[in-house]
């Protein structure tokens, strides 16, 4: 009895969703045809006819992808030219970030918030010491940093710098003081009006001339500054949207309590504004994460840069597709993951209530 019922339901669903009109039926057929065109060859290439084991290009015998290429280069893709003996430092450094970050992200663990926040503030110098060395650790020049590690470093630094910078700029752009407002506006519009690649060029070939001779900044550091300023300007516009969304009554109420400007912002306005624009902030992060790949144009070897170097390696010519598919999969996983998290934050109803409690 159940089976026909279910069949009937399926049929009804199909009629409603796939064959509601002649045009629709045609579209369905088109969709099926596309499916037939794309999926079987893709599966064949990715998996069924692919090679997974081996250590040299001689092991690539099948007609499909040769994942041996990725397997052989995996360490390089992850760490770049970071000395193999020192790679534990990278792993440890990244794992360390989870210590303060997890309790902040997972609600049940959110006690002692202040402690974790302080730990988060202390993280960058510790990470720098671990990654770069000095004080007992051997120095690893930033020129050797690369791969996914470098991508994460650039993205994380950009994000960490963009939030406070963007907040300041957004407040500046809404300030009543004309000089402050003009400065913030010009600054924001300038960075938003030019492509990131020219910013990176500026950081790599022009910035050194603007510093006094004798003072020179590391190439990676210069790129990081460029990325941070760029992301900060975009972040500012997102946060400004949030500031505008806070009802005027809130501003007035805060003022009526006799709070100073900074107190008003810190205690009343900014927390509300930030909460409103969480999805926008995550979108800036996603865009930033993708755009880190541009640093390869100024000669830094991020994940894409390392992959690009590997596919032009004469010993491994002809595995372009494998390399790109791998890089794409990694980037996709990070970006899609972030967008899912943002969607969940958007939906979580308890967030507002809980934060308000904490504030009180």
């Amino acid at each position, binding site marked *: 009895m159940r089976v026909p019922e279910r069949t009937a339901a399926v049929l009804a669903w199909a009629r409603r969703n796939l064959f509601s009109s002649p045009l629709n039926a045609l*579209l369905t057929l088109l969709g*099926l045809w596309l499916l037939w065109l794309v999926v079987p060859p893709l599966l064949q290439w990715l998996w069924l006819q692919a090679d997974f084991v081996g250590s040299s290009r001689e092991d690539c015998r099948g007609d499909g992808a040769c994942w041996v290429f990725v397997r052989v280069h995996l360490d390089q893709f992850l760490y770049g030219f970071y000395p193999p003996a020192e790679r534990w430092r990278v792993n440890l450094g990244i794992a360390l970030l989870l210590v303060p970050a997890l309790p902040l992200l997972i609600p049940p663990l959110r006690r002692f918030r202040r402690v974790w926040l302080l730990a988060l503030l202390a993280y960058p110098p510790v990470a720098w010491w671990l990654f770069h060395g000095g004080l007992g650790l051997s120095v690893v020049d930033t020129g050797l940093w690369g791969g996914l590690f470098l991508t994460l470093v650039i993205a994380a630094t950009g994000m960490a710098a963009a939030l406070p910078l963007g907040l300041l700029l957004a407040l500046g752009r809404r300030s009543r003081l004309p000089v402050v407002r003009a400065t913030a506006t010009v600054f924001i519009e300038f960075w938003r009006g030019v492509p990131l690649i020219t910013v990176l060029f500026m950081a790599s070939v022009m910035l050194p001339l603007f510093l006094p001779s004798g003072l020179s900044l590391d190439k990676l550091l210069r790129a990081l500054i460029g990325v941070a300023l760029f992301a900060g300007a975009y972040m500012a516009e997102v946060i400004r949207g949030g500031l505008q969304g806070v009802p005027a009554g809130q501003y007035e109420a805060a003022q009526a309590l006799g709070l100073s400007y900074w107190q008003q912002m810190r205690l009343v306005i900014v927390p509300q504004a930030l909460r409103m624009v969480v999805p926008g902030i995550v979108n800036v992060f996603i865009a930033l994460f993708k755009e880190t790949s541009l640093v390869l144009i100024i000669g830094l070897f991020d994940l894409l840069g390392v992959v690009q170097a590997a596919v032009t390696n004469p010993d491994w010519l002809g595995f372009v597709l494998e390399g790109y598919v791998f890089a794409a999969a990694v980037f996709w996983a990070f970006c899609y993951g972030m967008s899912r998290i943002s969607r969940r934050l958007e939906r979580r109803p308890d967030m507002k209530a809980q934060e308000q409690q904490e504030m009180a």
Partner: protein
Amino acid sequence: MLQALLLAAVLGAIVWMFGNALDNLARQGIASGFGFWNERAGFAIATSLIEYSETSTYGRAFLVGLLNTLLVSALGVVFATVLGFLIGIARLSPNWLIRQWAAAYIELVRNVPLLLQIFFWYFAVLRPLPQPRHSIELLGLAYLNNRGLYLPKPILEPGFGWLSAALLLGLVGCLLWLRRARREAGSDRGLRYWLIAGLLLLAPAAAVSLAVGLPLGWELPEFRRFNFRGGLVLSPEFVALLTALSTYTAAFIAEIVRAGIQSVSQGQREAAYSLGLSPGQTLRHVVLPQAMRVIVPPLTNQYLNLTKNSSLAAAIAYPDLVSVFAGTVLNQTGQAVEVIGVTMAVYLTISLVIAALMNWYNRRVALVER
């Protein structure tokens, strides 16, 4: 007080940096200024919309790069818009399968870096095409190989001016007719209506062609010692960049279009259906015009992004502004400050102009509504 301090700090920083730069340049006897602008450039550029040779000036090279940037951006905007609207509408199709396809496309393309996609099209799709000798022939007219797509090139012969004038006349006549017909006839848009429109459009041009013969020739690509010569060449760099820019931006436009359409209340749609409009008519005449108000502002941003993203051309050697000017010219002259400064100024200008245009359009759309 705070303002004065900020002003002092900003001005101080600027003065300090420029002081450093001037000091650095002067102490080492580095040339500065725009004296190089009128000097002979001496290098060749692969594709140019205007006359350019090795004897042209750096200024000319700048112009070539700028035009190439504008070309790829303009085409990219057109393709991305068309593709984006199609996918955005498909995203809301009543057909489940089509909806899933659109969603898959958006999620896949949006979450992978554009540079990687450019590399994919250039190195993984267009590089492995056959050598010129083994070109793929299309109808004996066009050829495809790893040096590009070779198409017949239209050659304008004398008398073409008349033909274009006639075409323009036809277009004007056709538009006038459509406008009048719309005002008078309301919903009566039968075959006759379109026939007259078509006739009005083509008749003057046909008359001219009959009178003076078709003043249009075709230059066919022809194989020489190394490769095809003549005809219209689309280089793989151009094709890869254009494809990647269009498909990438289309994914974002699709999401904007979806949000725009969803912003139009369901009641509007039901009202349109109850008036007897078909789904297609409803979309065209009721939903999209209202959705446009929501769509236009973020669409502007996407156009700006596309234009700025076209600078990634530098990675695959399409001779755009960044790769010609901030690349080759910078290398040849060594004047980093001037060259990068000009490049940034150009993008800033383009951004401001597009933003202004779209604001103007936005106001118009809003006015029509109210």
